[in-house]
């Protein structure tokens, strides 16, 4: 809920007679929202869409009407612009929200699988926007490959494994407490690929899980497939950047803070885990306000 809030300011500065909202206006506003619900639709390809977007940006009362329609449907407006179109996303508990249990079977029964699917989505985003600048720069187009995402997570896990070995830790989890197993072990334990009878990707392998994630994101209009190399190559869309920046990143961060983990980086670089493990240790008093350097 960012940009459209600003629209009310010129309206406040130049008071107008409250124009009566006609049913036709409401229909147009709802039409615009319905365009937003088709994430793969490109604004530039549809004249009506383009026209409604222009009206949203020029007519504040129409903008407020469209926002209201979206909110009423349980949608959050991320941005309305020619590049991203009417970028809306599902609010929590809205009928449009995607549930993990619908997304993949087994996830309700198996915490490990649930984690793997979630981590795959997080890793795709981290690979697509490796540096904070990339996420902030509106013109940036990220590129990911399925095998690349898997390899990158594996490498991060292997570093943790090596570090644990250096410190002489025994990371084998206790048999009766699978929930206490370190998260990185779950990924490294799962095989990267697997032969299947019909030469498709093995769904339970990590490349299968990442492949599912990118295919789903492509359906959501967040990624576009560009090739078949390295298990499938994809590039990001403006909507994905908005979604990750304004919704997912902050939500996951809030959850992490609630767990008492305060990740501190020096603000400039990226894609590299903070070298000192102290930053990853739990902080005693949870809920410290997050500060980036």
């Amino acid at each position: 809920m960012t940009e459209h809030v600003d629209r009310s300011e010129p309206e406040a500065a130049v008071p107008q007679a409250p124009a009566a909202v006609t049913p036709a206006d409401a229909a147009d506003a709802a039409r615009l929202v319905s365009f937003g619900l088709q994430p793969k639709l490109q604004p530039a390809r549809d004249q009506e869409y383009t026209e409604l977007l222009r009206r949203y940006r020029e007519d504040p009362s129409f903008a407020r009407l469209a926002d209201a329609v979206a909110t009423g449907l349980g949608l959050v407006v991320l941005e309305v612009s020619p590049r991203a179109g009417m970028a809306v996303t599902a609010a929590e508990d809205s009928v449009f929200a995607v549930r993990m249990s619908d997304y993949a079977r087994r996830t309700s029964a198996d915490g490990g699988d649930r984690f793997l699917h979630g981590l795959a989505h997080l890793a795709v985003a981290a690979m697509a926007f490796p540096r904070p600048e990339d996420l902030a720069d509106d013109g940036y187009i990220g590129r990911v490959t399925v095998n690349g995402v898997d390899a990158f997570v594996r490498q991060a896990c292997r570093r943790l494994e090596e570090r644990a070995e250096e410190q002489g830790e025994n990371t084998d989890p206790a048999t009766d407490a699978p929930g206490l197993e370190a998260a990185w072990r779950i990924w490294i334990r799962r095989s990267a690929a697997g032969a299947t009878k019909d030469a498709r990707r093995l769904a339970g392998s990590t490349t299968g899980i990442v492949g599912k994630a990118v295919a789903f994101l492509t359906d959501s209009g967040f990624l576009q497939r560009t090739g078949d190399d390295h298990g499938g190559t994809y590039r990001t869309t403006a909507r994905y950047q908005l979604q990750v920046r304004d919704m997912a990143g902050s939500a996951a961060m809030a959850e992490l803070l609630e767990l008492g983990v305060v990740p501190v980086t020096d603000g400039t670089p990226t894609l590299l885990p903070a070298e000192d493990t102290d930053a990853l240790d739990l902080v005693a008093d949870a809920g410290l306000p997050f500060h980036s350097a």
Partner: protein
Amino acid sequence: MPFGSMSDLGPSLCTVTSPASTDRVPPQLSAGPRPAPGPAADEGLARRLRALACTAPLHDLDARKANLAGEYSVYGMAEVALAAIDLVTLNMDFDTGADHDQIVARLIPRIAAQAPRRPVAEHERVARWVLENLINVGSVDRGFRAVYGTFTPDGSYVRRDYDFKLIEEVPGPGGTVYLRTTDEAVNVLVGALDTDVTSAQIAAEVKLEVLISRGRLADAQLAAEQARYRTVQYSETLRRALDATRRNVRAVDWLNAVPDMIAEALDHVADRYRHENAILTNIRKARDETEDPEHKRRAAELVDIVKECIRRHTQLQSRLLEAGPLFRAEQDRQAFATPLTTSGIDLYGHLVAPVLPLPLERAVRVTDAFFAHGTGLRTPVSVRLGDLVDILLTPPVEREHLGAEMPEPDLIATPDDSRFSEEQLAAAMKLLDLPADAPRRLSGLLAEARRQDPELPYLVALLAVHAASPPVGTAYRQGEEKLLFAVDDGTELDDPEFGGADLIVGTALLDAAGMAADRTEAA
């Protein structure tokens, strides 16, 4: 000790630990001075338990072969499994791994040797069964789990899960899947390979040289094979480092660690290359000078192994030389982009890196939050009852099982380039259709043919020569009644165009009825 199924693994391993734990538990109960077994003292035991667990899947194969449908006890499954691990290790390439089908194909001779009378299909089934069990296809992780116990720092006893793989599947180019052996498997295979690669390699080379100079080729072959495993292991370490660099320059220490490693590896390659060429010369000499055929064979095998080692070194070297330019290119790409001052979220540093070390039950809360807010929206499907009825009542669309219509092929008439025409053949056959009791000389036939057509004698001569060795067997099987034959009785052919023997050409009658009777009798 026989191992049960994998689920029995825990208990059977615990039997191994039990003597140790009975020793240790009483002092703990007596609450006396803290028992000696801290994690440090226990570490060696844990390591050995894990090593022991790695061999369990192999024993398990022999235990479980009884459960297979069919009689499989004749096969030594553990032997096949070790051979499979061996093959995969040797066929692992720098970039990919070993091909699944190729490994199966190479395993079959050994399996066939174990049970030569069984069908090949069964041998292949055994190969696939062993390979699938080494991958452990049935499990979600495609790996193995063993349970063992250790003491925590505070002296309490904890059972732990040890997860390992022997053969893992990795994605190859073009969506294919390749096999690689894991470090655990290599350890199971050659034992105690978990040592410093370089020093182990030097030791192996020295040993090899000594063995060859003493003429002990059987031992030398073993040493050479070990040297090859180490070379593969070396490339594997390097491959991982380069892969990591390609993804992220900063993930690898390019200030010290990697340049050191590359320099070391280049030295190693140069050194080994010199070394192995020297060895090669030595073995070749041994191969050529030795009288004993067995020695000769072994020496020849050794030559192949050492050549293969040299090939791998060369491959390693070319990768090493590419490493520097790769780093610089990646540095340009990754590090010198214009920095923007921003306080945005660093997805890796702020989320991925902190989440991975968390315990699963906490980490999953973060990934769930990301998933819930990062997947966008799905428009829910709403069904009207009327539509539903229509959908359910619509007959399924007929599949076009014949496929698309084939375009009419555009045929081009090929020119008829036969030497003789059909009419000529008919005329020649008529000429050669001789009564069984009146054979004729070839010279007469040629003269008669020449009167009909100047080209015809060539065809007649050809047919007559062909009849000099008539296909009696074929004619017999096909139930022919007569057969053209030609016999040379020493008379010279007197003809303006042809030379050679003036053959007697005639027709032999075959006893078709008798032959048919013979055939039915034989059947």
